Structures are given as C-alpha cells and as structure tokens.
C-alpha cells in the first residue's frame, strides 16, 4: 500500500509515472496542455525557434490565445499577434484563438473543455492556476518553460507542500468567490503560500458555484501559491458534462494526507472584502472602508468576467444610473459570455446604466488599454492585482473587489456595499 497523498501529489505522481511523490521531490512530468497569450508567446516562439524544431510535441495540446492587447492596441502589439498567428498556422496548432473566437484565456480554456480533472497544465500566464477549480494541476510559468513545453511535452517541478483550506458554511447574499479569496490573501499575505499548493476542501465547497471556484483558484497566485485545487463534486461534474467531451480521471486526497498548514474559513461569516492599494493582501471588509471616492469601475478579467459575475453586476445596476463622473467598463470573458449577456439583457442594463460593454480583452487589468488611469485616479476593479501603476499612472490606485461591490460603487461613486443601493 502506498503512503497517503494529497490531490496535487497524486496528479504529479501520475504525470511522473511514479507511485508516490513527496513534497520537495524534483520530478519530470508529461504535459496535457501548454498555454500562451499574445504577450508571452512571442518570447516563447523566439526561444522555440532556437531549437530548430519544425514541429511542436503535439499540436492538439497547445493553446494560443490572443487576449491581452487585443483587438490590437498599437502597431507593436499587432506585430506580436501576427508572429503568434503565423506560428500557429505553421505548426498547425489546433487550439489557436484569434479575435472573433478568442476570450480571456482563463475564461475560455475551461469553456472550450480544454482543462479537465487530473490534467497537468502549464501556461505562460500567472493566472493559469485557474484550472485547479476543475481538479487539474495547473500553474503559471514563463516563456522559456512554455517554449520547452511546446518542444518536449515535458517539464520539471518540485513537488509543493500543501496548505489545506477547509471551507464551512454558506456565503451570505452579496458574498462571492472573490470575497473568499481576498479574505484568504488578507489572512496569509501575498507570500503566505509561496512555493506551496492551496487545496480547498470542506462542506462549504458545495455552496460555491463553478464561477466562484474559478475566481478563487485564479487568485491563489496572489498569495504566492504554485497552484490551487478543488475536489471534483456534483457541481464540477455538471460543468464538465456541459463543456468537456474528453475522458478524464478524478483524483481525491487521502484522508490522512500531509499538509503544512490547515486554515478554516467560515463562509457564512465573510463580508464583502476589498483589497486597498498597492497589494492584494491589504484587505478591509466593507464596513471598514470609509469614504473612497472613485473615478472608474472595471467589471471583467480572468478573475471576474464570467456569466455569474455579469449577472450579479446587472442585478444591481438594473434600472439605476452610473454616478456622473464615474466611468463603468464591463468586459465579458469570452464571446460565448458576450452572447449570453446579450440574450439575457445584461448588456442592455450596463449600457442603459451609462456603462460600456466591450469585446473580450484583458485590456485594463494590466494597464494595457480600454480604461487606463490618469495620475490621482481611483478605480474599483474586479481584477486581480492592485500593484503600483498596474492600471496606468504610478500615482493611480486600484481597489480590488467583487462584481457586486464594483456595481454598487459605480452607482454611488464611492466604494459601497450592494446593500446601500438595493
């Protein structure tokens, strides 16, 4: 009988062809998916070309998504997209997503059924950890790792220690996955899970929608984690039935698996949570915020651009107006979500409220385009980082919040609880 393992250990052991792996062990694993975007892929392609290989390890196991500076914001960005497009054509990459098909990669990949339980996925984008919501081992890497992954179909890892996050209870009406992960980052800090895995478990998981789980797994990198991972339950299986046609293998942690730390979170006790500039760990609950007057609200990104997020925001904005002087930018994660938002009347609500409804793009989240801040401006954003200069000028400020808080703040013109406007 093998020794007990947690979920991440089991997936990595299987990928390495071993019966057992322990924390700290260096292993090489086979990759199920290698991902890149329009910023990281050009660097990876240049590296890949140094190998003089004329094909990638498996054209079905690479995904290239043009999502960051697209539709291209300037000539240099267009040149990068062109380079990726030509590479994708030359290498006959099956899963190449250009403008018209693309979405924000971490919203798009699960929707297309390209991430599934038990997979080992690397992506040259730090938020690749999102797919842990579907029980995959999934982690962000740089462009050279992406290049080597595309060439060899393998990579090496140090098996991480794991922190067990036990979720209990049911979140209150205006509390979502974003508040859960901001609360956790506020508790353990931006390096609280450095080099480690965050494994979410407990009966509270059942009270989180798939979109909540994607949001939580998405931001584990903001605590320094290598990966975040959720168990596969009925909610996950329903999602997979709808989106994924491939077979998959479900791994579950052993009851006596080893963890470096156990953290309990009572979901029913959480309040809407906001991360103040300039670190995601600078969290305050809504009752501690005070008066923060804002200039802009962004609802979207790989963290909170999914249909649940837009539905919550629209439910608050319906029949209301965005405060004069505030710009509201709403960005759906994918073309499918865009269409859903049209069909459900959400887009109409946003525009009638005085906001804009954009094509999918990472855009403002990283200060690319579609909502850059001037000096002294403040933005409430459903995105994932509030570092100095992240969304524009070094003297601008980003406050990270849930779609509910963002929508309510758009109405009042200051950081507000949804309860203030409902």
């Amino acid at each position: 009988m093998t020794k007990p393992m947690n979920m991440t250990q089991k997936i990595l052991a299987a990928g390495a062809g071993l019966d057992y792996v322990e924390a700290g062990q260096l292993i090489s694993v086979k990759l199920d998916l290698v991902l890149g975007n329009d910023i990281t892929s050009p660097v990876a392609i240049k590296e890949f070309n140094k190998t003089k290989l004329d094909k990638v390890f498996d054209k079905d196991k690479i995904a290239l998504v043009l999502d960051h500076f697209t539709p291209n914001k300037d000539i240099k960005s267009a040149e990068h997209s062109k380079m990726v497009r030509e590479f994708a054509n030359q290498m006959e990459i099956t899963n190449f997503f250009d403008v018209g098909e693309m979405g924000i990669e971490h919203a798009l990949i699960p929707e297309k059924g390209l991430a599934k339980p038990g997979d080992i996925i690397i992506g040259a984008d730090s938020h690749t950890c999102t797919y842990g919501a579907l029980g995959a081992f999934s982690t962000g890497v740089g462009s050279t790792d992406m290049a080597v992954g595309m060439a060899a179909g393998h990579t090496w890892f140090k098996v991480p220690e794991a922190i067990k996050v036990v979720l209990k209870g049911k979140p209150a009406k205006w509390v979502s996955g974003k508040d859960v992960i901001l609360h956790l980052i506020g508790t353990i800090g931006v390096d609280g899970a450095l080099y480690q895995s965050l494994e979410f478990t407990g009966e509270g998981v059942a009270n989180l929608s798939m979109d909540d789980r994607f949001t939580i797994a998405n931001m584990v990198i903001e605590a320094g984690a290598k990966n975040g991972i959720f168990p596969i339950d009925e909610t996950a299986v329903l999602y997979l039935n709808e989106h994924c046609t491939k077979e998959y293998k479900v791994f579950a942690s052993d009851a006596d698996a080893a963890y470096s730390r156990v953290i309990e979170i009572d979901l029913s006790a959480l309040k809407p949570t906001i991360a103040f500039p300039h670190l995601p760990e600078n969290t305050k609950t809504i009752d501690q915020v005070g008066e923060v007057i804002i200039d802009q609200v962004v609802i979207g990104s790989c963290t909170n651009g999914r249909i649940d997020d837009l539905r919550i925001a629209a439910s608050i904005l319906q029949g209301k107006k965005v405060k004069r002087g505030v710009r509201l930018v709403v960005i759906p994660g994918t073309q499918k979500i865009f269409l859903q938002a049209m069909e459900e009347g959400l887009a109409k609500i946003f525009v009638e409220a005085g906001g804009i409804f954009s094509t999918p793009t990472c855009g403002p989240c990283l200060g690319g385009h579609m909502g850059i801040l001037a000096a002294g401006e403040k933005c409430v954003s459903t995105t994932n980082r509030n570092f100095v200069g992240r969304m524009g000028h070094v003297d601008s400020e980003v406050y990270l919040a849930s779609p509910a808080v963002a929508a309510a703040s758009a109405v009042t013109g200051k950081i507000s609880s949804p309860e203030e406007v409902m």
Partner: protein
Amino acid sequence: MKAVGDVLKYGDNIDTDVIIPARYLNSSEAEELAKHCMEDLDIDFLKKLKKGDIVVGGQNFGCGSSREHAPIAIKAAGVSCVIAKSFARIFYRNSINIGFPILECEEAVEEVQTGHKLEVDFKSGVIKNLTLGKEYKAQPFPEFIINIMDNNGLIECVKGNKINWGHN
C-alpha cells in the same frame, strides 16, 4: 562563476509590474525592455546602475505576473545578479531559465546596504561583503543550474533534445 558589483537595495514584494510595466510589453526585445527596467519603482534606477551592479530585494521578489520580460529586462540592463530573502516562484524559474543568476540569502539582505560592494560565488554560494569585510552563505547552484547559466539559458540545453526527461 562569480559576480562582483555594487548594491542597489529595495524592499519587499517588488512585483513584475514595477520591474517592467505592462505598457512596455508590446516589445519582446531585451534591449528595449531594459530601457524601462524598474521604471515604476525607481525612476532613476538606470541612472544609478553601473554594469555588473547587484540588486538586493526583500521577501517575495518578482511577485505577480509570469512575464519573463521582467528578468530579461534586469539582465539586459546590466545587473549581474539579484539577491533577495525570497523570490516569487515564477520569477525564480524564469531567471534560471534565461541564465540569469539569483540567490536567496536572508542574512545578506539584512546587512547589505545600497553602495556596498559584493562578490558572489555561485558555485560555493558564498557572498562576500567587501565593504564590511563579512561573508554570508547562500545555497550554491547545483551542477545542472550552473550548466544552464554557462549555456546562457535552458533553451540552449534543450537544443538537439539532449535533456533526458526519464520517461516518454
């Protein structure tokens, strides 16, 4: 394999957005990226920097985005190595992968100040503070990391499929 240089010291959680702001990521040329290295952290960084200087940071250096452009910019700007209390894991991997040496050493970071002269031996992990006449010990690079450094990056090692992954 050694580095000798003067120190430029910064604090904790130096993120990749301040190392190379995303507004410059429409370029993937090392020389272009180097022109904006650390711009949002210290607008005078490039004026202060001499070729071969050593950047010292606190905890979680390189946190945030996976952009390999961050260590590429630091390396191309002429920095010889980064020493920090700890590194964000993607930045750590990226630095090694592009053949840019970085070391974790809490003791050195505590004592070293901007302007100190350091000598770093990557094979032994010994960091000498030539200004204070003191020594600190970091983890030495194992042979395969030295190999990546000597080849100026992982991709050169992968060329011709010379890496044995152990299984197919």
